[in-house]
């Protein structure tokens, strides 16, 4: 099986498995306990916190462990509007559901949301951010890198606008972590997740800039400075740190991705939705004219290639992509997306094999269509 769906989740790295197995076997302590067993667990959590902080250029005290990207985005957005009467949010429309749904919920509770325009590559113009901010604006939210098409935003420029206007900036960096270098120095809150970089599912972190206070969403103990109570997910946190230590963001993928694109482009009738520049190096999002992404996902899966059609409902049926819609594509085009996302272990042989299989599948699908067209 060739796995090209690393933006959905990445295989758990050997280093992570080993670190977690060791932790499960040896460190059962509660980090809040006063005895030495608890002390060792506390030391493991704090060591992991330092690792995550280092990877995103934060201070350890600014890292809050969470259950993942969705919790981090909820914690940040609800936290940053807390205490405001009629908060205004400025949100990019191509965000993950875990940003869009909280924004809609804020709206339902009496707040306002301005959805930013994006250009056909999915880029947010910082000038539009400036124009959208008004005196009620509590927070601007933008994804560092888009999960479907891979567009990387100019976070530094957006942060500059927010800083000048005195508005908080939350950034969802779940897809960016491990693929491009990220530094949270310019932003107020930033969510990351372990499983996208070869860590375990169910753990992530939220960067909360020193001086920014967030009320908790769930109430309980004093863990994670009271922002995120509950006994720490020790093996998960240890696994996250192990994955973060292995992450090597860089341009290694670009060559493979372009090799993939050249092969796919030779099928004809295909459009590249991922921008050629300022894009996640591992991500290639394409549309084959009048072929549903869902069909290609099933057909490729039967041939041993795992890819994604973008959004899917919990049952696994694909949804028209709200991201492609936001880029100005029609309802049908929004069903034609196919996302191929490379991982650290992807090889050029795999890329060539995927091109061969995809070419064959696309030819078959077009043949079926031709036959039906001929039959009227």
């Amino acid at each position, binding site marked *: 099986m060739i796995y090209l769906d690393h933006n959905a989740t990445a295989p758990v790295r050997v280093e992570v498995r080993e670190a977690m197995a060791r932790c499960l076997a040896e460190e059962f302590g509660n980090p809040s306990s006063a005895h030495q067993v608890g002390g060792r667990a506390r030391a493991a959590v704090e060591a992991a916190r330092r690792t995550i902080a280092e990877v995103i250029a934060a201070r350890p005290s600014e890292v809050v462990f969470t259950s993942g990207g969705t919790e981090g985005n909820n914690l940040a957005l609800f936290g940053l509007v807390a205490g405001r009467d009629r908060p205004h949010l400025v949100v990019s429309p191509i965000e993950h*559901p875990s940003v*869009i*749904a909280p924004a*809609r919920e804020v709206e339902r509770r009496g707040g306002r949301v301005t959805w930013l325009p994006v250009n056909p590559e999915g880029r947010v113009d910082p000038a539009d951010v400036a124009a959208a901010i008004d005196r009620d604006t509590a927070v601007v939210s933008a994804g560092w890198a888009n999960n479907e098409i891979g567009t990387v935003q100019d976070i530094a420029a957006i942060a500059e606008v927010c800083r000048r206007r005195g508005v908080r900036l939350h950034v969802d960096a779940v897809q960016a972590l491990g693929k491009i270098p990220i530094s949270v120095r310019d932003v107020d809150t930033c969510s990351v997740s372990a499983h996208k970089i070869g860590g375990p599912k169910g753990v992530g972190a939220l960067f909360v800039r020193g001086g920014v206070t967030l009320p908790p969403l769930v109430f309980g103990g004093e863990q994670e400075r009271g922002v995120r109570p509950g006994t720490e997910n020790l093996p998960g946190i240890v696994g996250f740190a192990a994955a973060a230590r292995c992450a090597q963001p860089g341009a290694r993928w670009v060559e493979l991705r372009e090799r993939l694109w050249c092969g796919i482009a030779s099928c004809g009738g295909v459009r590249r939705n991922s921008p050629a520049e300022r894009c996640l190096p591992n991500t290639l999002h394409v549309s084959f004219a009048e*072929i*549903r992404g*869902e*069909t290609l*996902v*099933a*057909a490729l*899966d*039967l041939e041993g290639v795992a890819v994604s059609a973008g*959004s899917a*409902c*919990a*049952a*696994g*049926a*694909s*949804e*028209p*992509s*709200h991201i492609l*819609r936001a880029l100005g594509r029609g*309802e049908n085009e*929004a*069903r034609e997306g196919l996302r191929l996302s490379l991982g650290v272990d992807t090889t050029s042989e795999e890329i060539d094999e995927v091109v061969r299989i995809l070419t064959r*599948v696309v030819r*078959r*699908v077009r043949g*079926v*269509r031709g036959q*039906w067209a001929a039959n009227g």
Partner: protein
Amino acid sequence: MVAMSGGVDSSLAAALLVEAGYRTVGVSMRLWGPADGSIQSGCCSFDDFLDARRVAEQLGIPFYVMDFREEFRRAVVDPFVAEYRAGRTPNPCTRCNQFVKFAALWERAQEIGADLIATGHYARSRTVGDQTELLRGVDHDKDQSYFLFPIDREVLRRTLFPVGELTKAEVRRGASRRGLPVADKPDSQEVCFAPRGNYAALVEAHSSPQPIRDGFIVDEAGHVLGRHEGVHRFTIGQRRGLGLQQGGPPRYVTAIDAASGTVQIGSGDRVVKTGLIATQANWLGPLPLAGTWVSVKIRSRFAPQPALVTYADAESFRVSAPAGLRAVTPGQAAVLYDGERVIGGGWIAQALSDTPHLDLPPQGEGESRRVSPGEPTMAPAWRRHAP
């Protein structure tokens, strides 16, 4: 590719195919639910998908949920609403078979490389020479061949009905014996997109921008007996829910005129017609000659009645039923049978009540072309394709 609803019939169908040696792929069709691109949308029946997935996992076959909401809305739900509003009684399951299962799904099947499709319908197919015939399911109580008349002949040749050879009880036993998790799941009875069978509410919810008009209930002389809240609430032969005062002999809906919003009621004998005209016909074998005696079914729960074909061409036909057909309902299908075999069918356009009296077919003639028990038995088509 086997269409798996998560119910017991299609689950056992999948199991039988796997056991027969087919390389099988299971697909659940997402048919209904919001398709507006919003990211917060539920599934049409999430638990059914989970059941289907569990069965597929147990059988060790790949499984996918595929989205047919657009096709379903266009081919089934919108016409369902339009038909009711036009004073007719739609048959959504047949339309779903015609345009979604045996068209869009078959296309998707070919696209993912499948050569055949299978469903859990209670019907049988049999290839004789280069003709593939559609036969009633062995379990006549559950027989679904009525809903399958519009299937394209080429597609029928590529279709397997693994449970058509079985009774419902055998299907449940088979599922139970194999430990399928859905063996005891209740049958679905209703139109899948109308919750709790409330068709009127569905029609009303999908009727903007032209609002529903109310109208009058009249007797056959045209006297107004009452008011109603829209012709979509009525079907030919309906007795209950007329909203009229009780007492007197039972009265039935005998005609619906959507243009004037009039619902006509009359006594039971006025509901019995002696023939019908059907259009948009589909023939699954040679065109029947005028003068041929057949059996006709005019809705799903209807014992086939003898009828004489008085006219048939590629697109339409007319039949006379001397013994009378109760509640011939425009919008429903009229399906013609030669014993077990589906000859073809069409959509009822008009009920006829003035056909001249005809003699019943001579005893036994209607039987002559039926499949007799002594005929050499052939393996059912779905088994013969097995590698």
